């Protein structure tokens, strides 16, 4: 409050300063009672300068400013649209590449599996054949050995008969002093063997 009271002479001075001006305006420029808006004598001048100002602004905006702004906005819009389209096509290319990669991978995998299967089958037939051959050879060897054993056995058995006949004849000779014909001894051995 003290400040305001201190300031009041200054405010008074300012008020006094403006007062003559206001009075000069009021008296000097004659009958200006009532709303200044209704001072008809100013209308012609207002309209005249309004027309000049408005037409000037219209020409400046319509032919200089608006085309420039529109141009900038249009450039930006087309640039953004172009960039978006480029991004979309790049994405499409990437997708296609991914798909191609997947297909190639799948293809390689199938081919690898097929190749493995084929190789495995080929190796199996080969080993099977080799095993068959070996088995056959073994079987043949076995059969031959069996045959030889049988032959040897027959020979041995016939040798046994001869030895038995001779032995029997000798025994008879020693015991009885009689000689036994080889044929009689032989048939006796046969008879004993048959029993």
């Amino acid at each position, binding site marked *: *409050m003290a400040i*305001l*009271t201190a*300031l*009041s002479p200054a*405010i*008074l001075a300012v*008020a*006094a300063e*403006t*007062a003559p*001006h*206001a009075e000069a*305006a*009021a008296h000097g*420029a004659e009958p*200006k009672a009532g*709303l*200044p*808006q*209704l*001072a008809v*004598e*100013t*209308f*012609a*001048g*207002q*309209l*005249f*300068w*309004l*027309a000049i*100002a*408005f037409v*000037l*602004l*219209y020409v*400046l*905006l*319509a032919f*200089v*400013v*608006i085309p*420039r*702004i*529109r*141009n*900038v*906005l249009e*450039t*930006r819009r087309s*640039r953004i649209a172009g960039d978006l389209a480029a991004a979309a096509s790049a994405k499409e290319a990437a997708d296609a590449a991914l798909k191609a990669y997947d297909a190639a991978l799948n293809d390689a995998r199938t081919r690898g599996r097929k190749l493995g299967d084929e190789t495995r089958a080929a190796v199996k037939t080969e080993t099977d054949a080799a095993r068959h051959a070996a088995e056959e050879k073994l079987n043949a060897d076995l059969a031959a050995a069996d045959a030889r054993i049988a032959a040897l056995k027959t020979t041995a058995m016939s040798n046994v008969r001869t030895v038995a006949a001779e032995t029997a004849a000798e025994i008879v000779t020693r015991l009885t002093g009689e000689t036994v014909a080889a044929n009689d001894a032989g048939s006796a051995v046969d008879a004993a063997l048959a029993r």
Partner: protein
Amino acid sequence: MLKMIAGPMEQFQVHPVSWLPRFELGGVDLSFTNASLWMMIAVIGVTAFLVIGMARAALVPGRLQSMAELTYEFIANTVRQNAGEEGMKFFPLIFTLFMFVLFCNLFGLLPYSFTPTSHIIVTFALALMVFLVVILVGLIRHGFHFFSLFVPGGVPGWLLPVIVPIEVISFLSRPISLSVRLFANMLAGHTMLKVFAMFVVSLGTAGGILSAGAVLPMLGIVAVTALEFLVAGLQAYVFAVLTSIYLNDAIHLHEH
């Protein structure tokens, strides 16, 4: 002492600019006045704002360029929404109206300035121009059929003698409402500011406890000034929107 202080209406006085010669044409005083001066300042202000803003015309706009572009797109969207794509033919006119009114309003808030849009003759001239453009566009596009604007669809025939005069009156009152709305808003706001200012001075110089009371109208001035900035933009926008709507009537007649 109150008498010594300029009245709240003095700010609206039109007087010739002292440093220029008087100018008369056919006995009519066409001198360059403070009103003319502030109209020209508005023209220069609008042009400077937009030209400087768009000077670099950068792909990625800076602050000022963003403001210029936003203003442009704001009005362009308003016109497109209210008057359709065909209404965009009149975009330069509506944009000029908006910018002119906006800058006249805003510069009018500067101390010691003058508000051209606080004068009914100025706003009425602008509104009348809009009105005439609407009628011309309507007549050129639809011929005599344009007057079917006064016959709303779906109204029973016996009501027409009542409805048509009402529609005609409402159509004819458009330029009046358009101009009075703007003028009255500017007049009221500036008068209020001045009245508050007078309170501050008279209370401040009254002495004693009254001097402290001067704070209240001072705060009032701050609030009203903020409000007036809003009103300045809003009224310019309302002017542009109504112009778009009226043009839409003329372009599309009954389709809306």
